[in-house]
């Protein structure tokens, strides 16, 4: 994979020995097994729901977004279409992304003011998604830890409020991963019954706490555990994003027309 100039410079910087330590060893077998179980957690083939964002800054000013989200997961591609419905200032704006397992990803955006669907360059994994505290990488990872991204250093049992969890810790495999994701380490509480992380703290390239994600509600959609409500605290800026879903439905056979880029301009698709 080619590095952007910033990633290249950051790689050199980190390789020189400053900043956060980069893992150099192999994963702890028990920790790796936990991460593999999370990665193997079944995904539903398709789901549709109303997505709500509340974004609050340090001074308490809150912006809200509401969108219809269509999600399809096939062996070749994860496709996500988002049609914003609220507030009025961004209503009818639509975003479509294809995350191909092989090859470059693809993004499209429809802005009503321009009247055109525009093919967009792909953002870095570490770039923030539409003003939220979630990065594009967070969204794509879907509460899993990339087995090629991390060295899993420990997984010990821990009891919180009388419930037993696994405490999984990981360090970035390389300076390149730190540059791409913006994360050097993480520590997470894992619900081992559901193989779902419910509390994650990420550290930045300097080893300082960057982001804290708490999953507040889990539910099954088509037999797959799905985060229905979670909060992301950006620990350095004091900004917070709360995400929750309503009217979530399992839709295993979403029509391709839902993910047709040109059709973003037609507005929210109706399903049979």
């Amino acid at each position, binding site marked *: 994979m*080619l590095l*952007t*100039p*910033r*990633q290249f410079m950051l790689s050199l910087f980190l390789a020189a020995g400053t900043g956060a330590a980069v893992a150099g060893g192999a994963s702890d077998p028990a920790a790796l097994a936990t991460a593999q179980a999370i990665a193997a957690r079944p995904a539903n083939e398709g789901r549709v729901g109303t997505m709500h964002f509340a*974004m609050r*800054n340090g001074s308490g*000013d*809150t*912006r*809200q977004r509401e969108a219809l989200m269509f999600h399809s997961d096939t062996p070749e591609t994860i496709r996500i279409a988002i049609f914003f*419905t*609220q*507030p*009025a*200032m961004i*209503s009818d704006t639509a975003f479509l992304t294809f995350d191909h397992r092989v*090859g*470059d990803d*693809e*993004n499209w955006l429809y802005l009503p*003011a*321009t*009247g*055109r669907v525009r*093919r*967009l*360059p*792909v*953002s*870095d994994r570490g*770039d*923030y998604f*539409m*003003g*939220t*505290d979630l990065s594009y990488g967070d969204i794509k990872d879907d509460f899993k830890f990339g087995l090629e991204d991390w060295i899993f250093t420990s997984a010990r049992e821990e009891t919180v409020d009388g419930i037993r969890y696994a405490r999984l810790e990981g360090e970035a495999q390389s300076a390149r991963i730190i540059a791409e994701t913006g994360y050097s380490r993480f520590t997470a509480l894992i619900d081992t019954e559901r193989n779902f992380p419910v509390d994650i703290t990420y550290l930045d390239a300097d080893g300082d706490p960057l982001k804290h994600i708490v999953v507040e509600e889990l539910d099954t959609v088509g037999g797959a555990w799905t985060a229905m409500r979670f909060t992301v605290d950006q620990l350095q*800026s004091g*900004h917070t994003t709360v995400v929750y879903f309503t009217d979530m439905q399992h839709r295993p056979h979403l*029509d391709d*027309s839902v993910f*047709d*880029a*040109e*059709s973003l301009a*037609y*507005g929210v698709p*109706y399903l*049979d």
Partner: protein
Amino acid sequence: MRLSRLSASMLAALLALEATAAPLRSSSSLQTESVIAAATRGGVSQLRVILLPETQLRMGRTWSAEGRLRLEGAASDTGLGTRETYSTVSEPWQSGNDVRVEIDAATLSWRKRTTQLTLGKQTVAWGVLDGVQVTDRFDAVRRREVVFTQDRPERISRWGARARFRFGDTRLDAAAAFDGTVNQLAGTGDAFDIRAARSRGGIPAGIVPASIDVDVPDNPTLGVRASRTIGTSDTSVMVIHGPDTEPVFLADGNGVELRYPVRTLLGATWQHAAGARVWRLEGAYIPEQPVNLVPVRGLAAAKESRWLIGSGLDWSLPGGVFLNAQLVVDHIAIGDIDLVRPETDVVSTLRIQRSFRNERWRAVLEMINVLSDGSGSLRPALTWQQGNSLALDLGADLIWGQQSDLIGQFERASRVTLRIRKTF
């Protein structure tokens, strides 16, 4: 006359749909308010309020309707633009000099999967480049502020029909506008009133014609576009046939008449996504482009071959910086005749933008350069979004060049702008 009846029938149909809103599956409405204040070296030169009430209705799985009005109010004579360039059915209603009402959209649509049919007052946006018109020449365009608008081009909707289909990987888009509206120009004496002889059919700056009439065409605009996606590349070809949206100036007694002869455009586009970059290319050929000749014994026009070629790059740079760079060449075959415009115009645009603080702030810097005459513009802008419904834009249009230049002719209109957007 027929068009008037058609538009009245469509409005009546929309109103009837509103009246029976109860059984509809969903409905929504919104209002947008904009205020623009622009200050030049001479003080505040423009103060404008725009209200955009909008209604959208969804009727079952397949039918939808949209209605949007544009209500504009301005301090006296500060540039609401011409009305004479509109057809009778689309002409804004005006009260005094300062208040206008225009139908921005009035559509009835039927949709099934990737097929959509739309009747009514609408726009048709084609092309892949940003704010420069190579193949994007179906719509009438609001040019009362030339290119110095937030969204570019500012489209004027027209009454017509559009059908979009998809057959496998190929899409077909056919559109017809039965509405002769061609554009909206700055009024005489407005900040962006054209001054260069090249934009006035050869009439030198400072000479004011005794009268200016507009011959709004009766001809429809017809267009068809076929497009196809192969991997991460999109290609399209298109034909547009209808009145040109750039006027030629011809003598009319002691005055001047603006005419919009019919022309045909053959165009093609290509764009390719490669990770953090998207490459774009457009080309258009207009075999008989109406164009003014240098006046000898009076205003005269001819039809000559015109080529437009444009390329562009979108680049998502590290740190959330977005860059858009474009280059457009506009060439017209002169042969042994003298035209009022140069044989070749070369224009470049560069836009860099970045958002801050979870997209509450956005900074944009745009530079437009006419490389062939040395004129250009620098357009910095800063946007602040407060809560869900308020946005403030502070910007500037800093224009340089000579009075004879494509953009330099508006040098005296350099300005600082403040725009407030509020939605309800």
